[in-house]
């Protein structure tokens, strides 16, 4: 489970109940998203140290589950797309005064190279601006040598409906 290992206060709380406890409210929204109850996010090992406000930072291990080229052990481009969409959405949530549903409207990703399974990648996403209920975000994944692996820009709608499409009388989006 990611949040406890990323939160020094939680580690302290586990050794002494008199010490300060770290609640979900103390975590960056991206850490809440990547908590154990999320069926996709809990499958990857990620560390969000350094995330604050409109900036999300992550160190993430490229999972063998997503190898596309088995000879080169290189990953499907979908891995970078999933990680970038996630951390860029986290940067939007971290920039909001109160949490409201958001949705990706547009995402553009350039894949410079395919990471190898087991490689640790460092990601950063920054919510650059929010204007007219749209958030404008940049994101990148770099390798241990700081070389870019994938770079992205995205737009996210803020304040989307929080109900399932199954509950709606008419189809809609955004």
């Amino acid at each position, binding site marked *: 489970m990611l949040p406890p290992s990323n939160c020094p206060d939680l580690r302290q709380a586990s050794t002494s109940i008199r010490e300060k406890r770290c609640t979900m409210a103390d975590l960056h929204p991206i850490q809440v998203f990547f908590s154990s109850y999320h069926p996709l996010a809990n499958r990857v090992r990620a560390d969000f140290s350094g995330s604050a406000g409109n900036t999300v930072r992550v160190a993430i291990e490229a999972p063998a589950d997503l190898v596309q080229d088995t000879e080169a052990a290189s990953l499907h*481009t979908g891995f970078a*797309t999933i990680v970038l969409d996630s951390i860029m959405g986290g940067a939007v949530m971290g920039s909001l005064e109160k949490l409201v549903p958001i949705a990706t409207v547009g995402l553009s990703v350039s894949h410079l190279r395919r990471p190898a399974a087991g490689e640790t990648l460092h990601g950063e996403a920054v919510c650059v601006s929010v204007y007219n209920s749209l958030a404008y975000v940049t994101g990148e994944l770099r390798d241990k040598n700081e070389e870019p692996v994938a770079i992205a820009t995205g737009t996210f709608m803020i304040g989307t409906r929080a109900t*399932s*499409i199954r509950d709606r009388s008419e189809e*809609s989006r955004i």
Partner: protein
Amino acid sequence: MSASPAETWFAVAPAEEGDCWKIAFQEHHLGNPLIRSIHGGVVGALIEHTAEKALDRALAEKSRSAKLELTTSSIDYLRVTKDSDLYARGSVMRIARRVAFMDVICWQDSEDLPVARGACTLRILEE
């Protein structure tokens, strides 16, 4: 040819219709478990996968054999998704000597109600 680990994880395979690709919904594809919508990155992955496979097929029809590398994908998310299978169809915009441009449309209930569209650029590395 056996599926790669990624193809297994995404549960992506050719759809019954020959020129379409399908992701069979899995619980780990969810992006928002509360409204049970599919993760935008999973939708993006299907678009990228379809672009590559559709280009591979188009090149084969021209008797060209090449290694393909997707370089850029630009995706518009048109509608909210739900917890059911995803489909995608790719079409060639232009095949040049070293790069190709593909359009992909992605849907769930009906191709007339797309949930996303993508424009992908791929590098063609002749073998």
